[in-house]
């Protein structure tokens, strides 16, 4: 008997190991539509905007001049810088508040609630997604306004005697509504990590002498870190680009960088719009890179 190695494997159709380029391409076609969408609706527009960011505009006409002026102008204008920083602070605060609320919720859900009720409660978290974002934000206008539900409640309870105007058309309103809007993202990301966690490990850690808090920090947190990172990414990054909520509940005082970009666009200042967009994009990419570093570093530290 001669060895069959290298020869065709009996019983398999010839095409299966033909390895021809045509066959390989044939298997790739399901990617086609997605690749086309990505190319025509993302990369090409992105490239166009990138090019615009180096052009100038005169009498609403784009002129291909190749200049860094648009970027410089952004960094030299106080209000732009301030809005940008405020956006970052807002994103940090909302991420912190969202995760701060979502973690106890997800922890309790995963650890103490029966599987059936877990589903019910998760559904309750997801249901708001079935209504439009716009409707939900309008609803918040009705809640936070001077004659809104919140003021009514506070007055009924007797905490205040006059309606407050501090909730709507400023940063407070934006913070409240964004926290509400992004809570489900944080909750779902954290829950999906916590759900896989075996909580007897915490009992074991305490058995070995760890205080409950230390058990949490040394045993639980390192294992659910991916959930935290996902939660941060899903909350922080979209907020940097938020436009609708600041427009509707932020008013003129609650403007974020997204509103600025829309204003550039409406004013026909396409190069300024493009430059601001790329500054945001660069910032987010920078963050992701830093975050990756931080993550790996942290993994090394806990192993030491």
């Amino acid at each position, binding site marked *: 008997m001669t060895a069959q190695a290298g020869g065709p494997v009996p019983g398999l159709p010839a095409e299966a190991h033909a390895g021809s380029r045509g066959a390989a391409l044939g298997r790739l076609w399901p990617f086609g539509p997605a690749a086309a969408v990505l190319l025509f609706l993302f990369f090409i527009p992105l490239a166009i905007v990138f090019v615009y960011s180096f052009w100038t505009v005169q009498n609403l006409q784009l002129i291909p001049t190749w200049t860094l002026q648009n970027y410089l102008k952004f960094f030299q204008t106080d209000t732009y810088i301030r809005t940008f920083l405020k956006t970052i602070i807002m994103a940090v605060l909302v991420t912190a508040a969202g995760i701060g609320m979502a973690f106890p919720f997800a922890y309790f859900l995963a650890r103490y609630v029966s599987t059936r009720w877990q589903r019910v409660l998760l559904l309750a978290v997801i249901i708001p997604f079935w209504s439009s974002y716009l409707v939900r934000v309008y609803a918040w206008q009705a809640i936070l306004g001077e004659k809104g539900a919140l003021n009514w409640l506070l007055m009924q309870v007797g905490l205040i005697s006059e309606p407050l105007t501090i909730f709507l058309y400023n940063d407070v309103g934006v913070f409240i509504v964004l926290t509400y809007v992004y809570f489900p993202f944080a909750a779902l990301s954290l829950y999906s990590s916590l759900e896989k966690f*075996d909580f*007897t*490990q915490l*009992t*074991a*850690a*305490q*058995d*070995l*002498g*760890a*205080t*409950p808090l*230390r058990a949490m920090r*040394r*045993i639980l947190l*390192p*294992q659910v870190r991916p959930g935290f990172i996902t939660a941060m990414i899903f909350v922080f990054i979209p907020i940097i680009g938020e436009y609708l909520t600041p427009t509707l509940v932020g008013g003129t005082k609650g403007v974020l960088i997204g509103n600025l970009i829309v204003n550039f666009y409406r004013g026909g200042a396409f190069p300024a719009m493009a430059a601001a967009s790329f500054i945001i994009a660069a910032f987010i990419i920078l963050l992701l890179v830093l975050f990756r570093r931080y993550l790996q570093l942290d993994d090394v530290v*806990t*192993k030491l």
Partner: protein
Amino acid sequence: MPDDLPAIELVHATKRYGDTVALDDVSMRIAPGEFYCLLGPSGCGKTTTLNLIGGFVPLTSGELRIEGQQVNDLPPHKRNVNTVFQNYALFPHMSVARNVAFGLEMDGVKGPEVERRVDEYLELVGLLALKDRLPQQLSGGQQQRVALARALVKRPAVLLLDEPLGALDLKLRKQMQVELARIHRQVRTTFVFVTHDQGEALSMATRIAVMDAGRIAQEGTPQEIYYQPADRFVADFIGESNFVAGRPSQGTDGPVLELASGERVALPAATASLATGEEATVMVRPECVDVGLEPPPGPGWAVIRGRAIGVSFLGDLTRVTVVTAAGEVVASRPHAERSRAAALGSLLDEEVSVWWSTAESIVIRQG
């Protein structure tokens, strides 16, 4: 003398979960260095007992002392007690060595001392070579050993083990039983071991508490539990038993049990006078029962006539099932010679006698 203090002492301990009484007024004393087994059917309160000792659930009433100290309200991380969990609960993000070091770090042990003790205990369980692996890169038996080393490295007063061998296959389980017994002899820590496998309890324990519905049905050495079960529940739960019920009375050669058929079955000579007229049950283990066409002559034997309805050859022994006036009686006979197996085989469907030495039988309560 501190040496005389029990390692664990439960005094009228009761634990209720709502309406469920998981532990019902249980008292026990476990001496230092014992290998104490909690044995019983599912739901009888074994895990609850361990959880009370470990500090994971509070007592409803009663008292718990560890090395003489009342610790009812001491949180788990302050108790000098460590646990091997049924699912091991190893930390998957830490290497074997880090897992074992964890408890030491929590105690503030530092530097080379940690390393030294981790190595010492990994050596003890035979896993030193695998210290840098992650738990998921180990087999079930190896994970089990890591859990053991992780708990023992803290040199606790008491080691609690909740069905630690439950997840292993039969062969590995036997191996680990031998291992555990060796480790126990080597470290001399008090072990409190939960199992519902009687073979495990009998082979490893210095003392066994058989539990039933939140109470201790009987406590004693493996031999006491096996040969002198306190009641029918214990006899049934541990090993295999024959029960013969009848009315006790006084025969010519001592106390006897009168069967419905009128047969008189000799009782152990030492049997305290039983209330005549009431039912009594005598228990005898199958391996103490012999079977044949004719019983041996002379006193000291309890004999019942019957018909052999089943003979199963099991290799090292033969089991003969005999229907008697008192129900089925099983005799389990080893064969030192081949001819013996053939002789037993020929009994099928014959009228036979079963008999046992009255000293091997015991009158028990109807549990």
